[in-house]
């Protein structure tokens, strides 16, 4: 009998090919939509963590209060000792110190007069250290557009867009005009080693990267950093793990009455990201949920239409002596095969396209030119373990549900009524 049913299924395209196509399309769209949302959310968290918040960040308590002003007069002293201790105690994390600073970058002409000048958002990283974790955190080589990475003291990197705006090229000498952590004017000369494009609008607009030691010297911040950021080595943010780490650190080292004592916060505790993550997760689930529900209704309707279209066949089979229960079970079995075939095809196709978007992405840079969020220009999808099931089960479930309801509708009619409709 199974051969008989499968033959019918394969030969009748409107009973197999089109329903399978419909399930495939629904599952495919669900998988791609889910993957794209996961990718965008993941990229946002990842970019924000790398460039700004870390998975955890240590500053002084006072800095934390005024973080949006980058108050280097409240920076964290004894940075090297704290880093050494962290690297020893929390070996499964990457730790690095950074200085954030603002100022003006002056590009002189041949006579030494100002040719161009622009405000900069400076970030000092350990660019020259042989074991610097920044090399694995910041994709500097990938982001390099012109020139080379700093090889010696006094060399800086500047964003390509900013360099173009200033008319500066690698090899040019530039002057940073800022203030020391004690409030005095700081003036330091640097050589542009290379230009970078991070693919993140907020960084590409006016960012310069300076070696940490150079910045400490220029800003009079000996053994001092604005912040120490920590990342789990697998670069996956775990809210629970980081919260535990922060609580442990603060319990040991942070003193409430001392505004200069170090204080560790997690990624979620910065810039309202915790609420954002919850909100984004909820929105993602709602959008995917609505999509899955709509798909289920479409597939249910398809099952119903398919069942109704086969009224004639059902009537004949009942007349031949096939039991209603048995016929019902075969209809559900057919829908299961259709659901499985469509779900496998839709999931495979969806994963393939999601994977393509994971590596190539969609460029929304022109829409984000004024954004100050750490949003990448290229939005990428992400294949997660959930991608394999998010469309698969609704695809199978909706197909079977459609057949179940269609069958009930059909079998509620008297057999004789079916026969009459069959004859008409």
């Amino acid at each position: 009998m199974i051969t008989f049913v499968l033959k019918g299924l394969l030969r009748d395209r409107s009973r197999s090919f089109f329903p399978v196509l419909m399930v495939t399309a629904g599952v495919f769209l669900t998988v791609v939509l889910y993957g794209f949302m996961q990718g965008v959310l993941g990229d946002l968290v990842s970019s924000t963590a790398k460039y700004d918040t870390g998975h955890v960040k240590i500053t002084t308590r006072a800095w934390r209060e005024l973080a949006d002003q980058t108050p280097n007069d409240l920076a964290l002293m004894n940075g090297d000792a704290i880093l050494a201790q962290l690297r020893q105690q929390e070996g499964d994390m990457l730790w690095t110190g950074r200085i954030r600073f603002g100022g003006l970058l002056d590009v002189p002409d041949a006579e030494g007069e100002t040719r161009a000048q622009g405000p900069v958002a400076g970030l000092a990283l350990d660019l020259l250290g042989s074991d610097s974790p920044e090399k694995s955190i910041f994709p500097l080589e990938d982001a390099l557009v012109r020139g080379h990475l700093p090889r010696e003291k006094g060399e800086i990197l500047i964003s390509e867009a900013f360099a173009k705006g200033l008319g500066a090229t690698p090899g040019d000498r530039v002057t940073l005009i800022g203030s020391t952590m004690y409030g005095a004017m700081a003036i330091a000369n640097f050589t542009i080693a290379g230009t970078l494009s991070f693919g993140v609008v907020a960084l590409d607009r006016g960012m310069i990267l300076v070696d940490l030691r150079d910045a400490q010297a220029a800003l009079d911040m000996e053994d001092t950093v604005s912040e120490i950021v920590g990342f789990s080595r697998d670069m996956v943010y775990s809210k629970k793990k980081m919260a535990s780490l922060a609580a442990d650190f603060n319990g040991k080292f942070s003193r409430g009455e001392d505004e200069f004592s170090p204080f560790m916060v997690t990624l979620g505790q910065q810039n309202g990201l915790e609420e954002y993550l919850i909100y984004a997760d909820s929105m993602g689930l709602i959008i995917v949920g609505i999509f899955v529900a709509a798909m289920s209704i479409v597939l249910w309707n398809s099952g119903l239409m398919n069942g109704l279209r086969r009224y004639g066949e059902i009537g004949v089979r009942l007349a031949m002596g096939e039991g209603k229960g048995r016929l019902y079970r075969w209809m559900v079995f057919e829908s299961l095969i259709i659901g499985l075939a469509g779900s496998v095809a839709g999931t495979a196709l969806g994963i393939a396209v999601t994977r393509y978007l994971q590596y190539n992405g969609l460029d929304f840079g022109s829409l984000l030119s004024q954004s100050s969020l750490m949003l990448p220009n290229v939005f990428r999808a992400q294949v997660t373990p959930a991608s394999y099931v998010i469309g698969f089960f609704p695809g199978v479930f909706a197909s079977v549900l459609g057949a179940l309801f269609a069958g009930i509708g059909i079998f509620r009619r008297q057999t004789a009524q079916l026969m009459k409709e069959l004859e008409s």
Partner: protein
Amino acid sequence: MAIITTEKLIKRYPVGSGFFTALDSIDLSFEKGEFAGLIGPSGSGKTTLLNIIGALDSPSEGSVTVLGKSVENLSQKEAARLRNHHIGFIFQTYNLLPVYTVYENVEFPLLLLQMEKSERKRKVENALEWVGLTDKRDSRPSQLSGGQSQRVAVARAVVKRPELILADEPTANLDSENSFNILEMMVRLNHELKTTFLFATHDEKVMKYLRRKIRLVDGKVVQDEVIGKGEDGHACS
């Protein structure tokens, strides 16, 4: 021995707030091997009676016994089993399963009986030979003429050798020649296999072959006429 008996059979359908009586106190009895027909105008209750005898419908009142089973007391499963094992149906519109070949259409009732493949093959080939369609075994219904389709339907009805075949307007969609061929075939089956045939028809061509005519008007039997009797005294052709 009677293989079909109806006693005070009444069938009512709800219409609005009242009921429409399709069959009114029908008392009939059919013996094995009969070649009988329910005749009468449209709406007289022929198909309703045929459906009840075929356990596709149940009576509102009275009793119907088919091959020793009380139709009114049958569960759906038992009714399906009765149809599966003992009754063959032939429809006006053939109702062949369009995606299956002639062979597979005829084979279908045997699949429901869970018969061995070799036995199925033998019986299907036998039935196709009976109706003269051996050369069309791999054709689809869409490739057949009306007459050929109805012959396939006959083969499908007889392949399991049922005691009773119910035929609802079997020649209504056929021309004279095809009607003649089909009816001759049914007469032959009735003779050789002793299969009981019960028709619902108002086709004059069919009526000529019937050995017993039961005229229904407004759900009542107004005439029960035996035209010819077989060697055993029953109304067979």
